[in-house]
């Protein structure tokens, strides 16, 4: 279909260049959404709760959680 990499790049570039107003609006929505999700929400509000722990420490932590006051 596309013999060379250059063809592929041109295909995408032309696609973006000749995009309709609707296409551009949708790209803006996608980019703003991804920015809010990753640069704001994930970074500031959704840290990995067990981040910074090694595998062993994670296991020990969850074992504690499962056995503290459980039985």
């Amino acid at each position, binding site marked *: 279909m596309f013999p060379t990499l250059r063809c592929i790049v041109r*295909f995408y570039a032309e696609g973006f260049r000749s995009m309709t107003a609707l296409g551009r609006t949708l790209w803006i929505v*996608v980019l703003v*959404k991804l920015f809010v999700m990753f640069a704001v929400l994930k970074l500031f509000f959704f*840290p990995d709760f067990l981040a910074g722990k090694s595998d062993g420490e994670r296991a020990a932590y969850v074992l504690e959680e499962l056995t503290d006051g*459980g039985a």
Partner: protein
Amino acid sequence: MDYLQTVDWSRAQFAMTAVYHWFFVPLTLGLSVLAAIMETLYYRTGDVFWRRTTRFWMRLFGINFAIGVATGLILEFEFGTNWSNYSHFVGDIFGAPLAIEGIMAFFLESTFIAVMFFGWDKVSRGAHLAATWLTAVGANLSALWILVANAWMQYPVGCRFNLQTVRNEMTSFWEVALSPVAVNKFFHAVASSFVLAALFVVGVSAWYLLRRREERMARGSIAIASFFGAVFAVVTAVTGDRSGAVVARVQPMKLAAMEALYDGEAGASLTVVGLLRRDRADDDGPFRFRIGIPKLLSWMSFRDAESYVPGIRDLVAGNAERGILSAEEMMARGRKAVAELGRYRAAREAGDRAAMAAVERKFDPAAPEGEEFLREYFAYFGYGYLESPAQTVPNVPLLFYSFRVMVGAGVFFIVLLAAVWWLNRRGTLASARWLLRLCVWMIPVAYLASQAGWAVAEAGRQPWAVQNLMPVGVAASKIPSASVGTTFFLFLALFTVLLAVEISILLRQIRLGPDGAEIPEPEKL
């Protein structure tokens, strides 16, 4: 106290994100296939009418896809932050399907969709058609993996609990991927999404017919979508029925709650419509009024009209005659399993290798004591965290009514789509204006039915995050409830904006029509 609130907030946040995410998914799954079918007609006939029609529906698909894409990732953020115990506990089993899904989604989005939108007139007609079909197949396959992961939470099979890592590890990929829950869930969720998309196409086309615009495109689209929708509405009913039979076996409490069946019965009848009492099951029974079909529930559950369907009371108090353990008994067994885990932790902290090895044998399915311990005790592990048997009962009214909304709509959709197909074929649909109006209104009803399906599946497995193994209270991270509350409202705002943007862009594009030209203010419906 605060922790309890955290669990409630985390659940509310997850439910809200999942509901919003599911507003985008079913239309993506179904409309991609409908667009591919229409493009196939273009490919085969060479008629530019089908090219124009395909491009119109593809545009609506693109809007829904662009706005919905990646909203599911927020659920994954929530796993890591709000549900860290759960994420660790299920790690490997969830990890594999989600990784496959991520990789597939990436390739799908960056290649096939690009060809689909940018490739008209740039690649051959055959290559374009292939890209459209691959987008449709890829979207539906990527839904497969997340549904497999969900099915595992409802019916955790094909895994083994590893004491050292404190997580479940997959022992058989195929047992996980082909469990009866996973298979039915996939076909039911996909088939019902096809129905939703078909109703969307029929509804939008009906709107055009009501306005006497784009009549050829509307009739052509209805011809395909109504036939496709009617076929998949039947598939939805068949797979839904099979799902019900699987639920009866693996989640009997969910089934009893869906039917508000408090006392088990042999030859149990299926409630078609009913109104529940507020004060639940007193001596007069749970219903204010009820119409049922004799023996149907028994037949649907176990394919035997005389079979015994356990009720909520049997499942809570136990029924020795029927071999049903009481919740108390399961809680006692669960506590023993949790206590073994506690012993393991103490031995590990004390560095007592012999004591560790003794517990390890119990968790080893290959060891004789392990086989028994896993079957008789660890199978009820999650019950060890419950405080009262009443906690095993999900929200009965929510399940009962959601199930009726879904099934009622499902049966109605079969009749409606078949009738629309027939009238359209005879050329009399455009004059049945009441039916066209009804078709427009069926778009939100289809969304409601789809959401109701998830309410049944998810609220029905409460209190479990992982059926019988991990209740939601243990699954949640111990983080301040205020922070989960804050992110709840952030998401509510983000998703509401996204949905509003989607609806407004979609409506505008529908108003503009396939050529994207402004038309005079249309007459009222």
